[in-house]
C-alpha cells in the first residue's frame, strides 16, 4: 500500500530510505534499533503486567497499572531525556 509519490511538495527524497520509510539518524540502522528497543520494552512490560496480575491474585492487593507503566517507561527511557 505504500506509495512514495504521495508526499508533501517540498519533501526531499533524503528524508526517506530506499523503501520510502522515514529516516532520521546518520546511520539508518539506528532508526531500526530505536524500534527494536521500543518493541523490547513493550514485551518486558507485557510480562510485568502479567506478574502484577499474579501478585494481585496472591496478595489480594492490586497495583494501579497506569501508574506502574508510567514509572516503568520513565525509568527505561531516562537516558534519552534532554537529548
Amino acid at each position: 500500500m505504500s506509495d512514495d509519490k504521495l508526499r508533501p511538495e517540498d519533501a526531499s527524497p533524503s528524508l526517506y530510505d530506499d523503501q520510502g520509510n522515514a529516516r532520521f539518524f546518520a546511520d539508518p540502522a539506528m532508526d531500526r534499533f530505536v524500534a527494536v528497543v521500543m518493541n523490547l520494552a513493550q514485551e518486558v512490560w507485557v510480562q510485568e503486567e502479567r506478574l502484577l496480575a499474579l501478585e494481585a491474585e496472591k496478595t489480594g492487593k492490586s497495583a494501579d497499572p497506569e501508574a506502574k507503566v508510567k514509572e516503568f517507561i520513565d525509568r527505561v527511557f531516562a537516558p534519552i531525556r534532554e537529548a
Partner: protein
Amino acid sequence: MTVELQHPMKADATPEEIARGRFTSGIRSLILNDLAADMRAAYDRRAAPAFAKEHGHEPETSREAHQALRGDPAFNIYSAMRVQAQKMVWASVADSVEREADRLSDEAKKASDAPGSLILDPDLDVPKNVHAIDVHLMPGSYTRGADSLEAGAVYDRGLAVFSMGLMGANLDDIGLSMSQYIKQRFPDFAPERILDTGCTIGHNTLPWKQAYPEAEVIAIDAAPGPLAYGSARAKMQGQEVHFQQMCADDLGFEDKSFDVVWSSMFLHELSKKQRAKAFEEAYRVLKPGGLIIHMELPPNEQMGAFDGFYLDWDSYYNNEPYYKGYRDEVPADLCKNAGFAADTFFDFVVPSIGIYGEDAVAEAAKGDRAEGVGQETTGRLAEGVMWYGYGAFKK
C-alpha cells in the same frame, strides 16, 4: 491510558493485548509531552541558533524550523520514537480485530433494526489519498477489509490507544466540544438538517445529534468499511444517523438542503483541489443562514516557526501528504473563495470539554474567540489540549 470503548464492538482483548495497548499509550504520552518539550528546548538552545548563524536570521517558517531541526539529536529521537509508536498503535489492535471478525458482524446484526441507515455506493471511485497510502501509517488505510467492519474496528480501537484518553470516553471530545460551543455561541441557531463530511466511523458525528436531537443528521465518507462500522456503532448507541458513501467534493444532495456542514480533522486529508471543491459543495448545499463549521489544525499563519513545524511533522513522517499544504492555507480565504461573505467568518479555540469541563466551553463561547490559536496546547494531542475551529454563515 487506553480508553475502553462504550459499545458492544469493543475488544474482548487478551491480557497481553491490553498490556501492549497500555504501553503504547504510555510511550506516546512520554513522546508527545516529555520528548516534545526536550525537542523544544534543544531547538531554542541549539538548533535555532545554529540555523541563525548559517542563514543570518532565526527560522521564520515551519519549513525553516524543519531545516534547523533535521539532524538534531532531540529531533531524531523524538521522530524515530514517534514513528514507531504510531506503528505500535495499529499493531496493538490488529490481532483482536482479526480474531473477532465474526463477533463484530454478529453484534452489528443485532443492532441493525435500530433507527438510522447505511447506503454504500459500490460504483464510487474512492480517491487515491484514501486508499493508495497507509494514511497516518495505518496498515491498509481506510479501505482495509473493503466494506467489512475491519477498517472501522482498527480505527476505533486504534484511536482508543492513540488518544491517551484525550479524545474522551467515546472518542467524541472534538464533536462534543465544538457542537456545545456552537450551541452556546449561537443560542437561537436551530439546525434541522446537519451534514458531516469525511466522518470515518462517525465518532464526532454523534455529538451533533446529541446537541440537536430534532435534527436529521447525515454523515458521509468515501471509504465503505468505516461507514458500515460507524452505522452499527451509532445504532448501538441509540443515535439515529444516516451514513452514505460519498465524497465531500461531489455531494449528491440538492442545493440549499442543509443548515450545517461540519467536518473534523478531515480537510487536511484532501488535496488542495479537492478541498476547494469541498468548500464550494458545502456552500451549494447550505441553505441561506446555514453554517459551515470545521474543526482542524490551526493554520501556519497564526503560529510561530517551531509550533507550526511541530504540527507539520506529520506531513513528512506520518503519511499525511496534504497536511502541510492545508496548514499553509488560510481558513478565511477557503471560506471566502467558496462564496461565503468575509464578514461571516469566525475562528476560535475551544477548550476540550472532557479536560476543562462544560463551563469552560461556555466561557469560551462568550469570550475573545480567537484567543489562544498560537498556544502550544492548541491542536496538539497532549496534556491540556484545546481544539481549533472556524466557520462562516451563508447569507
